[in-house]
Every structure is written in C-alpha cells, then in structure tokens.
C-alpha cells in the first residue's frame, strides 16, 4: 500500500539549509481508515485496499453507503479511494497515517483542477493570437482546423475551445520536503491541482 487521501491546505515557502526559498504545498494527509479489502484470491481478482478520509454526517450518507461503512466497522467518511497493494497486512478499520511517507523521496498527487469554464483556444491550449491591427478580424478566433477535401473532416482531438479545468489531474514526482506525523501534514515542493480544501490522492512515485 503506497497511498493516502488528503486535503490541500494551501501554499507557502520555507528555506532549505543553503538559504534557498522552496515553494511548498501543505497537504493534510490522512489519517485514513481501511473501509474495504480486495484480494487476488477472492472475488475481486486483484489486491487493493479502499481507504476513507475525513468525516461525513450519517444523515448525509446514503443508506447503501451506511451499510458499506457498517460492514467495515467505521464511521462514515468524506472521501473514498482505492489503492493497489501487493498482498496487504491491513485489516478492516485499520488506520493509516502520514508516517507512511517517511523515507519516501517523491510522490504523485492527484486532484481535481480548478474549473475555468468554457475557454477559448488561447487559454485552453496556449495557442497564439491573430494579428491585432491592419484590419484583422481574427484576434482571439480560431485559425484553420484542418485540411480541405482530404480528409474532408476535422481530425479527432483537434485543439479547440471548450470546458477547461475541473478535471482530474495528476502532478508527478513532487519532492517531499517534510513529513509531520504529529499534525498529519505533508509538505511537497511545488503546486498541486485543485483549490484549497480540495481532496487529493497522494501516492509514492514509481
């Protein structure tokens, strides 16, 4: 088991020994409870654990989910996520905390990026503007989106305007700057996707 569920708290900066500023994102990582175990020799055909993080009021939990939590013997949680294991020693209701990442160098952080709505090609795909002057009527408009008779259609995946953000993103190989087991904090170098208080999934990099 190599991952945790956490919450993005915000960014700040700290100094390293050589006096360099390091931009860090502070994550509240865990403690997580084990809510389900999947085993390769069972019905699930693969090894994994489902972890839960945070609190959810029972009255805001659907009846099927309440049953799921009752089966595990844990209180309802805010977020659930599954992490692959290699034949784990964890049991239902066990707690996993941030000390998991002690001695770990790099992590990947998955979160939901900030939603930016319907955006044009310049913001969404970093494309260039058209000319401003000389009677130009194509300042932020799209240019050509393909060829003519052959293929006679727009290729799939052509960069065009549309919904930007509010999408699951993973930032890979973030250096761990500090692990604070007392307060369940994890400081990673650089930014992570999503807004403050957003749920993130943290796992050790391959």
């Amino acid at each position, binding site marked *: 088991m190599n991952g945790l569920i956490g919450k993005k708290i915000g960014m700040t900066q700290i100094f390293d020994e050589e*006096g360099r500023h390091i931009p860090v994102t502070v994550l*509240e990582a865990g403690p997580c409870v084990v809510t389900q175990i999947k085993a390769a020799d069972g019905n699930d055909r693969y090894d994994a654990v489902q972890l839960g993080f945070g609190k959810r009021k029972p009255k805001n939990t659907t009846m099927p989910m309440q049953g799921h939590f009752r089966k595990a013997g844990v209180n309802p949680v805010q977020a659930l996520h599954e992490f692959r294991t290699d034949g784990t020693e964890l049991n239902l209701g066990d707690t996993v905390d941030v000390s998991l990442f002690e001695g770990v160098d790099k992590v990947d952080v998955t979160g939901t990026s900030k939603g930016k709505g319907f955006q044009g090609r310049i913001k969404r795909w970093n494309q260039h503007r058209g000319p401003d002057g000389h009677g130009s009527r194509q300042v932020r408009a799209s240019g050509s989106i393909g060829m003519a008779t052959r293929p006679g259609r727009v290729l799939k995946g052509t960069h065009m305007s549309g919904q930007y953000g509010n999408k699951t993103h993973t930032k890979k190989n973030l250096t761990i700057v500090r692990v604070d087991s007392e*307060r369940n904090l994890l400081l990673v170098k650089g930014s992570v996707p999503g807004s403050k208080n957003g749920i993130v999934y943290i796992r050790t990099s391959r």
Partner: protein
Amino acid sequence: MSNIIDSIRNENLRSDLPEFSIGDTICCKMRISEAGKTRVQNYEGVLIARQGTANEASLTVRKISNGVAVERVIPVESPNLTGIDVVRHGRIRRAKLYYLRNLTGRKARIREKFKTKQS
C-alpha cells in the same frame, strides 16, 4: 489564511537581530559560497523598504557602489543572513524610501536620529 499555514510560516523565526527600522543604515552579514568555500560578506546600505511578514519578510537595502546604485532584497529569515549591525539611525517620515532613487548626492542623504536620553 489557515492556522496551519500560519504556524508553518511562523515556526523558528529568528530573534537574534537588533532593532532597526526604515531609513537606518545597516550592515548585513551575508554568507556567500564561492569556489567551494563559504565566507561572510558585509553589505552596507540604507534600508529603504520592508516587505512581507513571518518567514516571507524581506529588506530592500540600497547603496551606492562605485558610483552605481545597487539595491538588494534580503530575506530576513534566510540562513544566509548571519547578522545585522545598525550603523546609523535615520530620521525619516515615510515607510518606503523609494524617492531616494530619484535623488543623488547631497539630496539623497538622510538625517541622523539620535536617541533621546531616558531619565
């Protein structure tokens, strides 16, 4: 700002620096490493601005070096800042002395503030 962020920003703040304020001439002892060796270099100038709080605080120190104006932004909490000496207290009426940039020579002087005698 969240309490957790604040606590990280405020941990291990230094208390070894003397009292100084804007307009003072200060001598910053900067640790620099060059060619594999570290040594302490003094940087003396007029403190013209302070920015930021907690571990993000920094000082803007201006001096005229060989006829060329130099402004250096020094992070207060940097481990490379080994100490500060106050050379001269200045008497000023502003929090930011950016007007000094437009002045040269005798106009760019700051009057010295002498401490009043405590009875």
